[in-house]
């Protein structure tokens, strides 16, 4: 055997040794953890397993999209938390993307005043921890005047310590969710069809609004007016849509913070578009809007979408801070369930599983979007 072969064999042996060691160590750690957990749980008198999911909880929480009682089983309560997380997460993703693109474009504006305003916004909201902004905002909201002294715009929109009251279409929650899903599907369809950016957005916006109005006319409850406006009746408001302050705080705080981050992503993408392309557009006599939607943005999107996807995942994860103000997102529900039922390991596993599922889904969607947006000619 030559010297080289000998060395190669030695290196191969070492590799096998290292890997066996790593696998062995992992097995020992996991096995040790399981054994310790079993003895620790037994000494605490807890039974492991998912049987507790069928028991009713016996405690209440702040926000739910579906009717809730304290007699709901753990499984249903956890599902409500999961829905709340998705609800806030997707609203935040939608709003931050919208405002992020607007502010990011403003950061790239030729007008000095607009650019300054956008820069000030980004530098303030990006540089303060999200949880501090949330707690700050919540303190302000909770110290708002009561419903009787509510601040109002034209007596249709009210803001008080009970929440934000908005006029809304008279539809049942079920119909509202259905409309939301159809609108979402419509958006995905437009992306799939690769429609022109600005026209696609307009089609989507107008199409969604029209669809809502038609649905509201078609299925509104007997005798109800088309639009329901909040009205002060005694000590509380009736009619319209009420956004409780916990939900309002979550949405506004995550939107303010996330928009600043996405604005930076968008600005970075726009900055990478070669200047010659913009100048070519100007030479052709295109308007600023056309240059933005037909030249700059399609080019910029290629470098925007991967980090944008990361921001979406961040936003979904950020919903966990709801626990700081008592918004009943999944993390909040899980942490209360842990103190109430003691089923720590099972509940943490559910929590982790839910986030792996959602974030994995978002990552897949981002990859799909990225593949769709790629320029074919390159």
């Amino acid at each position: 055997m030559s010297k080289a072969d000998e060395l190669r064999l030695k290196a191969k042996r070492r590799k096998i040794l290292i890997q066996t060691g790593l696998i062995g160590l992992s097995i020992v750690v996991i096995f040790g953890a399981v054994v310790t957990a079993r003895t620790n749980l037994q000494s605490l008198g807890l039974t492991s397993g998912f049987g507790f999911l069928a028991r009713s909880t016996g405690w209440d929480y702040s926000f739910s999209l579906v009717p809730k009682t304290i007699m709901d089983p753990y499984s249903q309560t956890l599902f409500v938390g999961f829905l709340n997380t998705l609800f806030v997460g997707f609203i935040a993703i939608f709003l931050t993307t919208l405002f992020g693109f607007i502010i990011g474009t403003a950061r790239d504006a030729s007008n000095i005043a607009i650019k300054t305003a956008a820069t000030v916004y980004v530098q303030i909201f990006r540089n303060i921890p999200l949880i501090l902004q949330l707690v700050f905002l919540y303190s302000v909201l909770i110290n708002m005047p009561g419903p009787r002294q509510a601040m109002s715009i034209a007596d249709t929109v009210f803001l008080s310590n009970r929440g934000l009251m908005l006029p809304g279409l008279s539809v049942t929650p079920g119909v509202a969710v259905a409309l939301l899903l159809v609108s979402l599907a419509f958006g995905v369809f437009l992306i799939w069809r690769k429609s022109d950016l600005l026209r696609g957005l307009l089609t989507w916006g107008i199409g969604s609004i029209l669809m809502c109005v038609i649905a509201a006319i078609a299925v509104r409850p007997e005798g109800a007016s088309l639009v329901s406006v909040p009205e002060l009746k005694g000590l509380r408001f009736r009619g319209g849509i009420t956004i409780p302050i916990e939900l309002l705080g979550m949405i506004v705080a995550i939107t303010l913070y996330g928009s600043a981050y996405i604005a930076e992503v968008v600005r970075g993408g726009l900055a990478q578009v070669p200047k010659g392309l913009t100048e070519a557009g100007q030479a052709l006599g295109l308007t600023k809007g056309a240059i933005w939607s037909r030249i700059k943005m399609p080019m910029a999107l290629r470098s925007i979408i991967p980090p944008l996807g990361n921001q979406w995942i961040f936003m979904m994860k950020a919903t966990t801070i709801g626990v700081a103000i008592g918004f009943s997102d999944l993390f909040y529900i899980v942490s209360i369930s842990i103190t109430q039922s003691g089923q720590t390991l099972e509940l943490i596993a559910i929590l982790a599983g839910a986030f792996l599922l959602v974030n994995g889904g978002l990552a897949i969607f981002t990859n799909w979007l990225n593949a769709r947006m790629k320029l074919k000619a390159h």
Partner: protein
Amino acid sequence: MTDKSVNTPISLASVRQILKKRAFSTPTDSVLTFVVFGALAWLAWSLFDWAILRAVWSAENVAQCGKETSAGACWAVIDARHRLILFGLYPFDQHWRSTLAAVAIVATVVLSCIPLMWTAKRIITLWILGFTTYYLLMEGSLLGLQQVTTDGWGGLSLTLFLFSSVVLLGMPIGLGLALMRRSEMPFVRGFAVILIDFVRSLPLLVTLFTAAVVIPIILPSWLEGDKIWRVIVAFALFFACYQAEVFRGGFQAIPKGQFEAGAALGLTYWQTLGRIVLPQVFRHALPSTINMVVITFKETALVIIIGFFDIMASAKAAFGTGEWAPHYLEVYVFVAFIYWAFIFSLGQYGEYLKGRMAISER
């Protein structure tokens, strides 16, 4: 084009030209400029008026707060409670230690920004020195001072402690994970990939919560350790998994030929890594690393949720008593400003470095 504009001295004519092009190019543009600048100026003035002109500054004048004559900020609450906000429940007569310790950490961060410190030996020595100084001062027993256990640490000092220990611990783990991820051995690589992707797809809060609540169940009690150390290790793992991806980006910028050159010279894996590859990786990864450090500093604010008395919690306590309850706004503005100043300066420094490196690469 850009080179020219950098070197042109600013003259009155050029300012006028820029203004004409970028503020008053069309009538709509002019209107927009006036409206937006007007709104910004009004905002700035209102803030200045509230925070400075009409503010009550000292705790003795607290009676004036909220009166018609002074509808501004009531900084009296800061005057009266700043010790609580900055130092938490640390023994009152020992606050000088907490101050010095915090200064040591801030000085460490500032010194690491100077290129003179950018050699492996210097930067490691600096951070270990800064961290040890902090720990000795805060804990005290080794210096013959009154002992204060970690339960007694709080406020800004605790935030800085969490931050520095996470970075100090997370950086080597991150490098280790990045190296494992590049390994030729499939099981080593797989281990790193699974760990990194798993931690990255969980919210930080879940990771920290797991460390605080789940680890005591699955570890034997002799391995359990203090809650604060468990949380720091979990936080460091979070930092490491993100930092590993930053390092991976740095590794990708190194041509494969350099490893081969190292091997051809007869250098071992570790020699090639330490002498040829890593110095370049660090350089490439520097702006993203600073970004990661900034994010870590921001995220330390989350520990309030798992029950630590960091600056957020001490701020809450500062207006928690009845007499100061109406002045929550001032306390939050104060804390937000501390965070902002730190994060903004680090962020600007990162931008500056990015710009400088872009120039050197042209």
